[in-house]
């Protein structure tokens, strides 16, 4: 079992028993009723780290002691004078006041950011003692750079971005970032120019020019997978460009691209402006797929654990609120304005309520067109990495499960969800169904080189 932080009881032996006392994979497997806040996960480890640092200010001494007595003896010795398990739990519960109240959170104005944005006007942040400023940002690369520069304390990111950043892909050096919660599931679509309304079979799309928002995005991977499954080589038969979403609509109008797999509200905006139609919702490709994420630098968890916990609670609460169908209209009204998405309210409402014009003359009713489920499944992260490997972004072999665990903070999200009374899955791994085929995260190899069938 990999740790999120470097193990303070490292070297030969490790101490990974769950805070509930039983020896099993800690956290989610731990029965919710028996040990609600079990002191595992990022926060629990942060506590261990802090204690070990306090006991052994010199790291050489710590290593020497570990080698001499072994971690078990050492922990027993420490626990005789300091309640380590209690500290882990106390820290995991993080009921203390946030160390840092004034936070800056960057977002991109798309409906994927709904929980991050709506938490501001609807006071989810302030309820947890935080004074958050949500800052609209010009693009994904700018979000990445500002997050790395710590101009933002936390940020709205595409789910693959923290994975790529942590692996050092697409950035100068590895930047340890974590997905505290998934922002939205589903909620994307393939939109085509109106002139292609007869070309609904992807096999006819050779020579098409597509746009996606960013190289490290679910949009890119889903489009590539969809094309490949339909016998189109995304690298040879079509052109896929990285284009900011608002420009997708303008480029579609200018006949500069044939379609895009993009975030909402821009699919709906293309319909609203009469330049395109919605070919397929990504929900139909992979129901429950992640899209955007709420990302924090991993240092935040050790440096300001109470702030992290408060932020986590705010986001999980806002996500749960956004997910309820009866709240969707209210949320749409709250975020459509100048200060947030800056879009016509009817466009945002169509996306969130799932009652929408498809651009082909029909009104469709898909209530789960976009969903909000904060749980960061490790299986999602593993699929993302298989696609990074498949399309040449990741040039080396990595331990998928370990990276998934480090980057997707399922334990901490699970704990925040449990505190809200939300059901928490027993394991962060599940078999995903992608375009009708099962993806087993325990055996991902088949998907890294999945053939393009022609």
């Amino acid at each position, binding site marked *: 079992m990999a740790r999120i932080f470097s193990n303070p009881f490292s070297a030969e032996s490790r101490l990974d028993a769950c805070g509930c006392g039983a020896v099993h994979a800690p956290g989610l497997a731990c029965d919710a009723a028996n040990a609600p806040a079990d002191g595992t996960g990022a926060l629990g480890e942060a506590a261990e780290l802090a204690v070990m640092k306090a006991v052994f200010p010199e790291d050489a001494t710590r290593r020497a002691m570990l080698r001499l007595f072994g971690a078990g003896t050492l922990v027993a010795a420490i626990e005789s004078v300091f309640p380590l398990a209690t500290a882990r739990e106390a820290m995991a519960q993080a009921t203390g006041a946030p160390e840092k109240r004034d936070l800056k959170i960057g977002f991109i*104005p798309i409906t994927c950011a709904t929980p991050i944005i709506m938490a501001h006007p609807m006071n989810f942040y302030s309820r947890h003692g935080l004074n958050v*400023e*949500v*800052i*609209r*940002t*010009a*693009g994904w690369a*700018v979000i990445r*750079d*500002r997050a*790395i*520069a*710590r*101009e933002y304390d936390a940020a709205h990111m595409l789910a693959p971005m923290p994975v790529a950043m942590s692996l050092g892909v697409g950035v*100068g050096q590895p930047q340890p970032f974590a997905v505290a919660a998934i922002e939205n599931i589903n909620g994307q679509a393939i939109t085509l120019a109106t002139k292609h309304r007869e070309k609904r079979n992807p096999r006819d799309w050779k020579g098409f020019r597509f746009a996606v928002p960013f190289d490290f995005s679910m949009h890119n991977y889903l489009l590539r997978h969809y094309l490949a499954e339909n016998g189109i080589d995304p690298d040879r038969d079509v052109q896929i460009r990285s284009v900011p979403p*608002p*420009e997708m*609509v*303008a480029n579609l*109008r200018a006949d500069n691209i044939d379609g895009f797999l993009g975030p909402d509200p821009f699919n709906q*905006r293309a*319909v*609203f*402006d*009469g*330049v395109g139609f919605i070919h397929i919702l990504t929900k139909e490709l992979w129901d429950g797929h992640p899209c955007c994420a709420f990302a924090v630098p991993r240092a935040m968890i050790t440096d300001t654990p109470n702030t992290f916990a408060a932020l986590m609670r705010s986001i999980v609460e806002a996500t749960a609120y956004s997910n309820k169908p009866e709240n969707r209209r209210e949320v749409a009204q709250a975020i459509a*304005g*100048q*200060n*947030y998405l*800056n*879009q*016509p309210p*009817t466009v945002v409402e*169509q996306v969130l309520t799932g*009652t*929408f*014009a498809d651009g082909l*003359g*029909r*009104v469709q009713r898909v209530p789960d067109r976009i969903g909000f489920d904060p749980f960061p499944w490790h299986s999602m992260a593993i699929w993302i990495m298989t696609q990074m490997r498949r399309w040449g972004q990741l040039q080396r072999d990595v331990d998928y499960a370990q990276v998934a665990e480090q980057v997707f903070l399922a334990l901490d999200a699970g704990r925040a969800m449990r505190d809200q009374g939300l059901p928490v899955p027993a394991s962060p791994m599940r078999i995903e169904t992608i375009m009708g085929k099962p993806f087993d995260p325990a055996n991902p190899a088949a998907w890294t080189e999945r053939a393009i069938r022609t």
Partner: protein
Amino acid sequence: MAAKVPFWRAASVSLLILAVLLMAWEYAVLPVAGSGAAVDPEYAALLGQAAAQGGTTPMPGPSAIGKRLVELLADPFYVRGTNDQGIGVQIAYSLLRVGAGFALAAIVAIPLGFLIGMSPLLNAALNPFIQVLRPVSPLAWMPLALYTIKDSAISSIFVIFICSIWPMLLNTAFGVASVRREWLNVARTLEAGTSKTAIRVILPAAAPTIVTGMRISIGIAWLVIVAAEMLVGGTGIGYWVWNQWNNLSIADIVIAILMIGVVGLLLDRLLGLVAHAVAWRE
């Protein structure tokens, strides 16, 4: 040279051209009526006005833009949260950034230009650097600035700085180098020290050239700030354009273009006044 045209005649021809242009524009974007595809009202309610009639949302005409302009200028300085601030506030942010970058550039460029102008050795030594760096597009510096400075506000000021510095530097050096030999000789016979010569003789003589350099610089700086703010975001008129682009509100973009033009003109005129004040005739 042609005879001087009376102001009112030129003005009336300008107005006439403007009126014709606006009318042609308004006519060109008139929605084509009657071609509306018959769709059910529920569907139509979910679409934009033009799309519901079977077309695409058109370019706004001058009347729509005029209406929006009045709306925006009625309250240009409101602040409703981080991401919603009036157009006046945005222009103020941009002016502040341009001012800061420009002032820094002047502080560096004018003394350095003096040195280069007065010392042929320094001139020859620094020339290759200047020649290589000068043609670099200011925006090409942006990613590097963001990466090294790690602060977007300072990065945009740095970009203004780096694009403003070259015209001022070169013009100052040129102005200083071409001060008349006789005047310098007179100063020498009067036994004026180097600093006294620089301040009392060279500076006044080179002042018009220096101000010309500043005038070129401020023009470039104002050009660049819009692009820089579109890239970095946050505040400023460039970001405002990006934001309206995000919302695909073309009317607001046209207005922003107009505002950028007007402010640029005012900045140029301001330095024109300075140039007039320091000008001298033999």
